[in-house]
């Protein structure tokens, strides 16, 4: 088994290390937008500075209401052009990414390798449940972990989340994955890790006193190591199963379309 250390610290200002297969798509869109936005901002500031330098008190103001058809047309064209060049890619790429990647649950569900995990969030911890060899949740062979999510590398990981008290938000910055856990709802999110290691899972939604400490560890193992871990953990669970411990018997029938 690979020797693992605590999550690696980040360096410098910038997006945290991307350990997911598809995170770069979000990063690229952010960075591309930054180029346009930066350019617009520089032009705006330069314009104002130049106006102040050239058209100061000694310059005679032009009597112009800017209402000529030409002037209005120029304004509308610039605004339209900015919309299509800057907002356009954001919109189109968001649609494409939702369809093909981040919202494409059908593909992940159809993949026989996919790992399914149920998460219950509560003040202030993340409890994870794996179905175990029988593929059914809330059975004696389920693996249940506390603030500790272990997943295989190179495999789509599919989460369904609930909350038992207030709203939390399941956030794994290094995987560019985030979704709210809302009482009364089952939400879902998926990612695929492209490298092994340990990463922070954080709560992104203010959930009370210890919100800042609602932290879990995501451990990504090579697929064979993970299978070994899962087999051992499942055997342990089955052995320690206590039919009378009702508190421990949560979990819901996994439905691929469990959405409200």
């Amino acid at each position, binding site marked *: 088994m690979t020797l693992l250390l605590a999550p690696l610290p980040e360096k410098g200002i910038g997006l945290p290390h991307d350990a997911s297969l598809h995170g770069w798509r979000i990063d690229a869109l952010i960075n591309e937008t930054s180029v346009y936005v930066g350019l617009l901002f520089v032009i*705006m500031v330069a314009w104002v500075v130049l106006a102040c330098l050239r058209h100061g008190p000694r310059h005679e103001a032009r009597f112009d209401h800017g209402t000529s058809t030409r002037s209005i047309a120029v304004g509308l064209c610039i605004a339209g052009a900015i919309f299509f060049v800057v907002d356009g890619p954001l919109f189109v790429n968001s649609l494409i990414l939702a369809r093909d990647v981040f919202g494409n649950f059908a593909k992940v569900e159809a993949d026989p390798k996919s790992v399914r995990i149920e998460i219950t969030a509560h003040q202030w911890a993340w409890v994870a449940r794996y179905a175990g060899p029988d593929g059914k949740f809330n059975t004696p062979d389920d693996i249940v972990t506390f603030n500790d999510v272990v997943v295989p590398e190179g495999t789509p990981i599919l989460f369904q989340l609930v909350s038992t008290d207030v709203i939390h938000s399941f956030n794994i910055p290094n995987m560019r994955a985030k979704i709210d856990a809302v009482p009364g709802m089952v939400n879902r999110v998926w990612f695929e890790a492209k490298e092994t290691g340990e990463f922070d899972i954080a709560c992104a939604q*203010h*959930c009370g006193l210890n919100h800042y400490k609602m932290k879990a560890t995501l451990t990504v193992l090579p697929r064979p190591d993970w299978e070994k871990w899962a087999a051992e953990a499942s055997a342990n669970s089955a052995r320690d199963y206590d039919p009378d411990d009702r508190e421990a018997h949560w979990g819901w029938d996994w439905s691929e379309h469990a959405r409200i």
Partner: protein
Amino acid sequence: MQAIPSEERAAHEELQPIHHEPKSFFFKYLWSLDHKMIGRQFLWAGLGFLLVGGLLAMMIRWQWAFPGKPVPVLGSIFLRSQGGAIGPATYMTIFTMHGLIMIFFAITPVLIGAFGNFLLPLQIGARDMAFPWLNALSFWTFALSLVFVILSLFGELGAAGAGWTTYPPLSTNVGTPGSGQTWMVAAVFVTGVSTIMGGINYVTTVIRHRAPGMTWMRLPLATWGLWLTAILNVLFVPVLGSAALLLLLDRLFGTQFFIAGATASVSGGGDPILFQHLFWIFGHPEVYILILPAWGIVSDLLSFFSRKPANWYRGTVYAMIAVCVLSAMVYGHHMFLTGFTPLLGQSFMLLTLIISVPAELLFLNWLRTVWQGSIRLTTPMLFSLGMLFVFGMGGLTGLYLGATATDIYLHDTMFVVGHFHLTMAAASFVASLAAIYFWFPKMFGRRMNETLGKVHFWITLVCLVTVFSGQLLAGYSGQSRRLYDPYQYTFLKHLLGVNRVASYAAFLLLFAQFIFIYNFIRSLIAGEKAESNPWQVSTLEWFTASPPPYHNYDRIPTVLRGPHEFADPEVRRRLGRDFIGQAEELPEAMPPAVASAG
């Protein structure tokens, strides 16, 4: 120029007769019906709570720079029981109260309460609001809500702590059982009642009390901004009121509108997301409620101090109207990660991105107004240009958050905090300061010191940009908002440096405000006396005394042209100056060229 029939003027005089100024202290200063006095009441209350909200912000900044260390000065006064340091429970009340106080009890009263009241009747040539009594009631209802805020601050188990967004179930007894949270929800409800009364008054006043000749397309843009804001308030604050009322029922009477859960610890058949819908149906227009007056004011000031007509006045008006209409249809972008169906999220994304078109038109108009002008970098002008700078940053960073893909990563990070502070906080604050420096002579009959004003401007701008850029960078690097100690997370440890720099800038920002306070008080007492039109500009309020008499205008003016008539060669030839008032007649018969320019 269409002639104004004398009957119309007579009708206005009859509608708004001159009342005698009350002499008793109670009716002059407390239950005053005079919009100028009520505006001042809102100004004092708003500035006072701005300071409270600002001090709370300093404590948040201290915690991010020196987590768990005793807070200098403030800690030894307010946090003595905790050894002067901020604990996690105190921390969550601090950021909650900071947000709620700044939005509802500082920026709203200053921009809308003070300037809305002071400017609207003066700028449209009216003697007072349409409903002066309702106006006074609006202020005193607001004052009642301030009492609730103070009660919350000293509430059992601390002040409100569920965040300014007050999401249930955290904001119900499940998460925040203390009385502080209840008082604060009640305060928001009561201030909402006050805002609605004010809004109805503003809307009616502008419709009914415009002076003869003051057509819609001759209104100053500040009036347009304030009027549109009033409409949004009347439409959407009731939605907030309903959310607050349902939440109060959940807290006090055991209903379960917003409590859900089928497990042992929390049970209920309500829907927490319903609250978010109600909150953001109000909450997104609220962003524009706070910025529209600022846009209007800045649009006017840029023209005034460029000594040039505002570029494409109608375009600015239409853009502001478009933003108002769209503002009600984009709120879902606050909820992309709540488990929306993708189609809903994507529809909200499209509508959100469309808002950038009118926003771009506004910016283009501002930039083209100053171009080819004769720019006077007075203090109000500097603050107006400063608003362009911070609002530019804030508006552009909104793009990332409006798109569903990029929002996955940036949602609930400090990037969001930086973005909305640049728009709602920095831009509104800077525009409020522009407005105070600009209308101070009209309000108080004295002038503020320009040198101190400019020093104040430069420190304020640099600090605001540093503080909120720091937030943007921290969020871009992954720091979630509302973390008592971000450095608990390995991937955030290295952000202490950038947070500390931003905090130092915030402390300096606070100190710079003392320059302003000093200048304000000194000018109030001993400032140079202002004549009626010290800035040499064209809107109606500058053609009555400074400060205006109780009834504003001895004779209701007859408006002849738009609000930005600068640099007209014909005016220069006949009057020997570069501007002409909205109600000022040109000597000799008016040539057709000038008449059509209105």
